[in-house]
């Protein structure tokens, strides 16, 4: 099938089979390997991308769903060397260790900031409870998220 979308700000046309998932296509066909595959069951959040501004599990979303929509992966957040505020907050708070959850976590915080611009601590924690990090213990990730919300 033919899918037209705006991928990280660029009009993009993709020829793909009906059964292809966003995760496979961005990683293997488009070389955007920042989106990570972990649980592969829409539980861990490491493959989170934004589809028309909404957080989506790329592991369980058909490429067909992106037709006519805007898809943003981690590679689309920064503007050249300029980090976006969420990325910068993760840097400021050392909220990264192995980094494998990081792209999905950053996309989740980006979605959080759009969904709940005035989120309190409980909302932040609840929202991010669907995204797993095994390294950091979340403390610095939550600090980074709070910084993003407070800005």
């Amino acid at each position, binding site marked *: *099938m033919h899918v037209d979308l705006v991928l990280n700000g660029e009009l993009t046309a993709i020829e793909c*089979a*009906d*059964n*292809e*998932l966003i995760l*496979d296509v961005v990683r293997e066909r488009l070389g955007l390997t920042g989106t990570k595959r972990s649980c*592969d*069951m*829409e*539980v861990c*959040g490491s493959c*989170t991308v934004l*589809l028309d501004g*909404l*957080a*989506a*599990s790329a*592991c*369980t*979303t*058909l490429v*067909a*769903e992106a037709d006519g929509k805007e898809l943003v992966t981690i590679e689309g957040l920064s503007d050249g060397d300029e980090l976006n505020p969420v990325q910068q907050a993760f840097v400021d708070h050392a909220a990264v260790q192995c980094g494998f959850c990081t792209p999905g976590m950053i996309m*989740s915080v980006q*979605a959080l900031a759009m*969904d709940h611009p005035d989120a309190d601590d409980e909302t932040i924690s609840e*929202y991010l*409870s*669907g*995204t797993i990090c095994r390294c950091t213990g979340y403390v610095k990730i939550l600090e980074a998220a709070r910084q993003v919300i407070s800005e």
Partner: protein
Amino acid sequence: MRLPPFTLHRPRELGELLELLARYGDDAAVYMGGTELLLIMKLGFAEPGHLVDAKSIPELGELHVSADRLAIGAGVTHRRIERHHDVQRALPVLVDLERRIANVRVRNAGTLGGNLCFAEPHSDPATLLTALDAEVELAGPAGRRRLAVADFILGALSTALDPGEVLTHVHVPVPGPDTLVGYERIVFTERPAATVAVVRGPAGARVVVGALGPRPMRVPHAEMRLVEDDIDAAVEATSSAVADTDTEPGADYRAHLAGVLLRRAWSAATANALSVPGAAAPTKQG
């Protein structure tokens, strides 16, 4: 994990969708959010050759809130319900439930109708909607029909959908100000370990336990006790009902949990009622 091959169809009208279902029979599956369907396909538990995407059918994307009912199209996502101001006003307990389903990504894509059709035994909405006497509207080769959610979910991953039939709407009665509604869940892993919904209105009571059996279970004995305003007895009846049906190790704990959740759902329901002027207040609290 990859998906097995299939052809994706995107009908624009319900009639077209039904034609596709009729044409491909068992080899077709209705595809909405895909949060459950695509997952079981990836795991190899289902391999339909045709997915019929119902999201672009305008009728299925509608969400109407009137004074006495919600009409939720099968394509309406959890997210839309969760963030819908009229639903929040009419049935806050549903919004509260929707907010807790799975994770934000699943709620963004998944639909209430899809959730019911999947009939996963740990479904939150199935428990509450059974208690609210909600109905599903189905369309198929033989026309349209309505079924109570309680009659629609037959067992684990099993519904009363006939071949070629599709769920089009979920109809939820909006409880009046004289009706108390409560819902509680407890989660230990990814899905709820137990859920309980309670409804108490002028016409009677509903107590429904979810996640502890293949489908939501009504507990008539507990309902009778609630009608008598005896929450303690209702809690006991709920625990007994679970203990009678659950034969796996640890059943006593789950039976106890069901009772605890009923008591908590009831207190939440009465607390909500007390905060709404003119709403019913319980005559006796547990």
